[in-house]
């Protein structure tokens, strides 16, 4: 059961501001989403996970052991502001 506190907690984690007047509506929506997700529990009983693949007859999608050129390092590090000295860099957390 989703409550008002859950909505506030999720909003905080997601760094979203939520209008007080919308909370009831969001609580109801979120409850319905969870309810819908729960239906999957009734759908998969007695089915082995690998049986899913038999629906499409897909097994053994392999790549062959042949080397392809890797990406330029600049491109690889681009998402992390270029990294530092060729490395991904994680700065020490402050002691606060």
């Amino acid at each position: 059961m989703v409550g008002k506190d859950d909505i506030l907690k999720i909003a905080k984690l997601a760094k979203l501001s939520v209008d007080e007047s919308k909370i009831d509506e969001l609580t109801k929506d979120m409850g319905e989403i969870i309810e819908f997700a729960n239906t999957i529990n009734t759908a998969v009983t007695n089915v082995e996970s690998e049986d899913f693949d038999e629906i499409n007859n897909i097994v053994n999608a392999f790549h062959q052991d042949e080397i392809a050129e890797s990406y330029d390092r600049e491109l690889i590090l681009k998402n992390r502001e270029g990294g530092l000295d060729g490395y991904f860099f994680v700065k020490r957390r402050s002691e606060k």
Partner: protein
Amino acid sequence: MSWELVAGLETHVELSTKTKIFCSCTTEFGGEPNTHCCPVCVGLPGTLPKLNEKVVEYAVKAGLATNCSIRNISKMDRKNYVYPDLPKAYQISQYDKPLCEGGYVELNSGKKININRIHIEEDAGKLVHQRGDIYIDYNRGGVPLIEIVTEPDFRSMDEVVEYVEKLRLIMKYTGVSDVKMQEGSLRCDVNISVRKQGEKKYGTRTEIKNMNSINFIAKAMEYEFRRQIDVLESGGEIEQETRRYDSGLNITESMRGKEDADDYRYFREPDLVTISISDEQIDRCKKSLPELPQQRLKRFVEVLGLPVDDAELLIKYQKVADYFEEASAGVESPKTVSNYILSQIFRRFSTESEKEEFNISIPPEYLSVLVILAEKKKITSQVARNTLEKMLDEGKTALSFISEEDMQGVDEDDLRRLCQEAVDANEKAAAEYLAGKEKAIGAIIGFIMKYSKGKADAALAAQIVKEIITKEI
């Protein structure tokens, strides 16, 4: 009452594939940081992994070589944990349907160390810690691993060391890994607990992570065994936790509370399809397996007549054992070949990795010819030894160094004359021999070898000298 050690091992072996487990980046060791990477192995959103077929083949071979049964149907799972060495915040591994299950490795004592499972998974990146900052290199991220998990069957450090050495050799012989421990291709986690002798229930275990040296494994276990006993004897309790071994201080220290499977929230990897292996494929893998180290050891002892210790030393280094086999072809006594390798040739290598590489200037057939010449008494063993040194120095055949004079040896009449001279010149040694000091004869034989320039047959000379000394009484 004394305490008993109970230990189990998880061994990570890096497979010798050319490419990573889920992408086609190279697995080459080293390289500038983050130059063996692509969007798949740095875990960028929207990328899809694709399993390397060779990884499956190598894992099946490793399983067959350790007496495991192979699953016809297998799958990959996500193991979730958050740490910077895993860019996706999960590792793709196998949970409830590993490729191989239920094998064993047999120790010299006949005891079997049971293998619970062997599964495939991706390696994590490498972290460099500097003043609290972390530098991450994902070159190693996605390199294929097998994890070999034993039951808690070890009862001593010696058993663990023997098992790791045997496992290392099996992986090397099957060609699934180069098992270079110094490069981290074989790393062990040890689960260890203690209990009073005779007790059935296991004690609380700790896990010592990521050791890549057999020496460190033994030392870390020794320390942890003592530490746990000290804690229990002083009334404390063992905490289930993960510890690391500090080789500088020779201690283990706590890293974090130990996770159980539930903490990892395993679930099926939805981006990878089922792995299906037919019985025919398993058979093909079985047939492609080479002779395994233990079988080779048995053959060297039972068929080629080597002492067990010599055979063990030879099979320990695959290239040396191969060389020995080739050099033994056509000789009467493989033991002579083994003697030359283990004494004269091994003296030229000072480290384990040099023996492993076995870079030697002469091909095995050159050694073979030398041994045959000695066996047919064309040259004496002394000449053979001297010649081998020159061959190794210059990489040439035996006949490049053996003169006609060397081949002639010393005929028996000349040898008898020389023996008489030697006895006359070494009266003290002859008297000591007569008084029961067998070794004294060595001085007389030394004299003969010196004056015959090493060409005399030492065994025949010893026989003649003994006849002369005893006749002279």
